[in-house]
């Protein structure tokens, strides 16, 4: 998933860099502000764990292939969204600096797609679901869904970045979206299973690790329900409307025209990206039912990505409070 230099245009790299720097900077500030100094070694250690865990190959039960953990959601669940975001930024930086995995100019885009979305967005989704269903089952379900969505949202974000980089009339954004997200909805299954497996192991062996920051229930219950219902409705709408919208006149195209932003001209392109070329063998996602399905998926993911990121902002105050509750007990 790491983007090399030269793939994205300079403007997009810059834009993504600014966004990522904002998110990481904010997370660093949050980290510095926390009551306990302990978060600093915890964050560094979490990054080291993710780095090491990415080297562990998981046999995927249904395919003769191996997967590995990306880890954004796992990090956020264990050490919280801010520390998780910083940890992911560190992992990506080390991979770039030591393995030349991902370009230096594209660091911002990589950090955004894999780190920020995974930890901040993923954690928001996780906490909605885990609060909805009490007990370990809710936590595992939350982890699984969040991990899956984080991968898909990351790929959606990448296709947007890629499309923005090549506005010279080469791209069909909806189709790119469809291909990318469909492929990654498969890649995401691996991530979801691994994250879910690790979380359920943690819950079995050391439940306090994940349970610890218990939040006062009354304050959030009402808000949580509202957000949850809203999310379900939004996702449902996206899933049902997106295919129809794209089949008629392309919704995005219309929007582009209306805003005199006609750079996304439709030309048939078979974009093939290396990481993503294998999955649905023998299925042409550009036509028929598959097309509808994949566009529906794309709609779902796009919506949930946006939802996730916007939710994070709403959660800032609450997380701060919860972190303070949890850590005020420790001296240091």
């Amino acid at each position, binding site marked *: 998933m790491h983007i090399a230099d030269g793939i994205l245009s300079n403007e997009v790299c810059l834009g993504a860099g600014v966004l990522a720097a904002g998110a990481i900077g904010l997370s660093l500030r949050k980290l510095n502000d926390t009551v306990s100094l302990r978060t600093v*070694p915890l964050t560094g250690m979490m990054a080291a764990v993710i780095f090491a865990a990415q080297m562990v190959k998981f046999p995927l039960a249904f395919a003769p292939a191996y997967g590995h953990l990306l880890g954004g959601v796992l990090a956020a669940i264990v050490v919280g969204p801010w520390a998780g975001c910083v940890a992911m930024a560190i992992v990506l930086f080390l991979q770039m600096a030591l393995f030349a995995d991902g370009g230096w100019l594209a660091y911002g885009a990589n950090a955004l797609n894999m780190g920020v979305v995974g930890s901040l967005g993923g954690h928001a989704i996780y906490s909605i679901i885990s609060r909805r269903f009490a007990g370990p089952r809710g936590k595992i379900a939350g982890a699984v869904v969040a991990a899956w969505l984080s991968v898909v949202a990351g790929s959606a974000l990448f296709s947007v970045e890629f499309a923005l980089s090549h506005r010279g009339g080469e791209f069909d954004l909806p189709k790119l979206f469809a291909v990318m997200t469909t492929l990654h909805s498969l890649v995401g299954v691996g991530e979801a299973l691994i994250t879910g497996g690790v979380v359920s192991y943690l819950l079995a062996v050391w439940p*306090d690790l994940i349970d610890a920051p218990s939040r006062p229930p009354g304050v959030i219950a009402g808000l949580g329900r509202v957000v949850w219902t809203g999310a379900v409705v939004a996702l449902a709408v996206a899933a049902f409307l997106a295919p129809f919208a794209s089949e008629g006149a392309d919704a995005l195209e219309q929007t582009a025209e209306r805003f005199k932003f006609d750079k996304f001209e439709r030309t048939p392109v078979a974009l093939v990206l290396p990481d993503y070329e294998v999955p649905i063998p023998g299925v042409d996602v550009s036509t028929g039912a598959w097309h509808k399905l994949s566009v529906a998926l794309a709609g779902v993911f796009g919506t949930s990505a946006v939802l996730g990121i916007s939710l994070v902002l709403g959660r800032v105050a609450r997380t701060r409070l919860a972190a303070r509750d949890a850590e005020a*007990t420790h*001296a*240091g």
Partner: protein
Amino acid sequence: MSHAPAPILKVAHLSYRYPVGQIALCDVNFVVGVNEIVGLVGPNGAGKTTLLLHLNGLLLGTRLAPRNGETASVGTAGYVGAAQNAAGADSNNESRAPVEVLGMPVIPENFPEIRRNVGVMFQDPDDQLFCPTVRDDVAFGPLNLDFPRDEVLRRVAESLASVGLAGFEDRRPHELSFGEKRRVCLAGVLACEPSLLALDEPSSNLDPRSRRGLIEILKKCPAAQIIASHDLELVVELCSRVIVLDQGRIQADGPTREILGNEALMARHGLEVPLSIRYGLEFGKGPR
């Protein structure tokens, strides 16, 4: 240390319970004087590590007033001031910190001063070597004590030399052997020039030669020391006084040979009379 009579460390009625867990320390009392080297022995889970973590405020225990009868059997050292009488002591005690270093109570306000004076070496050297190079690591303490750059460099060179690792400044911790890592940890602690050194299992996993080297370094070190160890032979070699801890309580406190030679006491607390003392005693009595 101009006030010579004041002890370096004073622990009074210290108790501690882990948030999730049983009571790890219960009414612990002892004093350590200047230049003393005290051994801390006891079975696994006795509370040795927990006790060491209290010495510089990494854990903050509570001060339990002694109740009648219960603590009578525990040998409390005779430092509880005569002014503290039964009732008055109760309320008075609870408001004071259970641990005092160089006369300062171990409370958050005093942490900087106390951490400069108490050096703690942990059991696993990898827990302690968190900087990218040996120099950075040894300099970490002095830098945090706000010493000027020159002074920091001087201390780094000096303490590395004192553990026999001069010239290792640019090495990276993961390239060192286990014994070298241990010694770098010790250098990092010595660089702060502490008045009290607390060592947790300093000889574990060391081969006999490295262990011998460590013993020689510790013998030369001028600071008062508390050494928690299962290696009773090391305790016999280094310490003049031993405290036996079991189930969070002090079970005995006295001269090394007397305590460690007490077969019944040792057996009661999961220990064994070390061979050196067993044979030493028998020598004293003649062969066999």
